[in-house]
């Protein structure tokens, strides 16, 4: 029987999977089901260049329509999946249509986390996850208007940066004691708080939002004027289909090194997964483009029986104003954070996170060389001398000693 793959979810992981299947010589049929009405597109520019109007709609697409046509992919966009019938090897759509599969790939991604705040469902309250979200937000984006961002994570701060450039009056409210707390260390958080303040954004940390009312947001430190409100409260993996089908689900859909779920006929890739990472010796649930692409490549190789690509060190990036933040590795478990450069002045430094001298992660702020070198150093479990890392007279190429 000809192999038929059904992919549920049409994001970057799915697009990479299809591209890799083509490259790996897959000859069976592929059906791509996505709930948004769009071809797979890049989400990172949504909160950056696309929102700023610097990137047109068609340039968001990962691949043009002609690519899917040439690959022979059957596109079912704007289509919702209701359930997985594992017994019968079929995906059941919301309208009852059944799509039989020999291999199913769940690339269901994640969705914006909502907050149980009074008034969170009012008009003028936005989320930022999809093209539709940004189109709605763009229409309300005008100089002089006041914007309150609830949540000082990447999305919230990237949006705050674009809004400040567009001369909106921006306030960011973060419940934790520092911004971007989940992704970077305290030194980097403090830098970003300074950066945004220098650009005219009012950053408040350690405050909790009580309610969203017409024209303002009520908060533990008072009331903030708000013509519009953006909720940036993180993302939740879309694991419901998998869970209802009885697959093993933890922080995401649990997959093995080949991206296979607890059902050997079903793979899962991208934001919706949790996978053991050999380098970090634990299960990782990553919400990143790099992870989506890597798992797309891995699943394609596994499906076609090609060698599985070597595991890479996870990395992430965030662009705010003229500052490029590049993060590589994961700092959890570090016992020392070594700063290279001055985070209190200017806009360029790097923080190296070590555990007993072994490099675990780096946050590089306008420091691409440190970032690029560290990718390799983390992969090889390099042990580094903190004194050399700190000393800017030691060239980046000599950091290893």
């Amino acid at each position, binding site marked *: 029987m000809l192999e038929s793959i059904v992919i549920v979810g049409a994001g970057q992981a799915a697009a990479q999977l299809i591209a890799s299947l083509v490259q790996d010589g897959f000859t069976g049929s592929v059906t791509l089901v996505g709930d948004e009405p769009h071809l797979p597109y890049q989400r990172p520019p949504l909160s950056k260049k696309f929102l700023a109007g610097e990137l047109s709609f068609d340039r968001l697409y990962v691949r043009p329509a002609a690519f899917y046509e040439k690959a022979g992919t059957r596109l079912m966009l704007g289509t919702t999946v209701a359930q997985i019938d594992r017994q019968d090897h079929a995906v059941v759509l919301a309208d009852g249509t059944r799509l039989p599969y020999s291999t199913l790939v769940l690339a269901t991604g994640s969705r914006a986390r909502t907050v149980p705040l009074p008034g969170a469902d009012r008009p003028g309250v936005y989320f930022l996850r999809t093209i539709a979200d940004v189109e709605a937000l763009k229409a309300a984006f005008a100089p002089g208007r006041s914007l309150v961002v609830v949540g000082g994570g990447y999305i919230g701060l990237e949006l705050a940066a674009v809004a400040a450039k567009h001369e909106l009056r921006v306030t960011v409210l973060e419940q934790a004691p520092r911004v971007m707390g989940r992704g970077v260390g305290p030194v980097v958080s403090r830098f970003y708080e300074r950066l945004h303040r220098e650009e005219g954004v009012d950053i408040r940390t350690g405050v909790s939002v009580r309610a969203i009312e017409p024209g303002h947001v009520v908060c533990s430190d008072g009331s903030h004027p708000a013509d519009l409100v953006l909720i940036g409260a993180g993302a939740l993996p879309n694991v419901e289909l998998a869970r209802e089908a009885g697959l093993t689900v933890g922080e995401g859909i649990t997959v093995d090194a080949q991206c296979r779920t607890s059902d050997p006929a079903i793979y899962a890739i991208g934001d919706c997964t949790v996978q053991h990472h050999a380098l970090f010796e634990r299960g990782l649930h990553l919400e990143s483009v790099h992870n989506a692409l890597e798992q797309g490549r891995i699943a394609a190789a596994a499906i076609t029986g090609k060698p599985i690509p070597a595991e890479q060190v996870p990395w992430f990036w965030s662009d705010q104003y003229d500052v490029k933040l590049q993060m590589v590795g994961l700092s959890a478990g570090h016992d020392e954070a070594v700063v290279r450069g001055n985070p209190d002045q200017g806009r360029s430094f790097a923080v190296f996170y070590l555990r007993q001298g072994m490099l675990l992660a780096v946050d590089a702020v306008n420091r*691409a060389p440190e970032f690029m070198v560290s990718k390799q150093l983390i992969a090889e479990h390099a042990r580094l001398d903190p004194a050399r890392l700190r000393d800017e007279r030691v060239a980046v190429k000599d950091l290893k000693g």
Partner: protein
Amino acid sequence: MAKITFEEPSGKLHTVDMAGGQSVMEGAVKAMVEGIDADCGGACSCATCMVYVAAEWEAKLPAKQSDEKQMLEFCPHVQANSRLTCQIPVTDALDGLTVKIPPSQH
């Protein structure tokens, strides 16, 4: 419009007609040129769209900005004639450009 030729590590040539209004990286990805990974989608954050530029073309391309220089400094397989294709906009002046793809982008 510009005709740009990519030479894959195997020596196989891949010539692509590219319209303006995009980067050389975007044109290559659309045309399924193998070996242009472009993981970050053009944010100059990953250095996985690197190519080697033929000598006669090096001076004809727009000069490298600081972002690109910094990313290239420690890019795997980098050479003096390396460029990141996401940083090169397609223009008519690029017609006939030939670039070589590195053995790997990692």
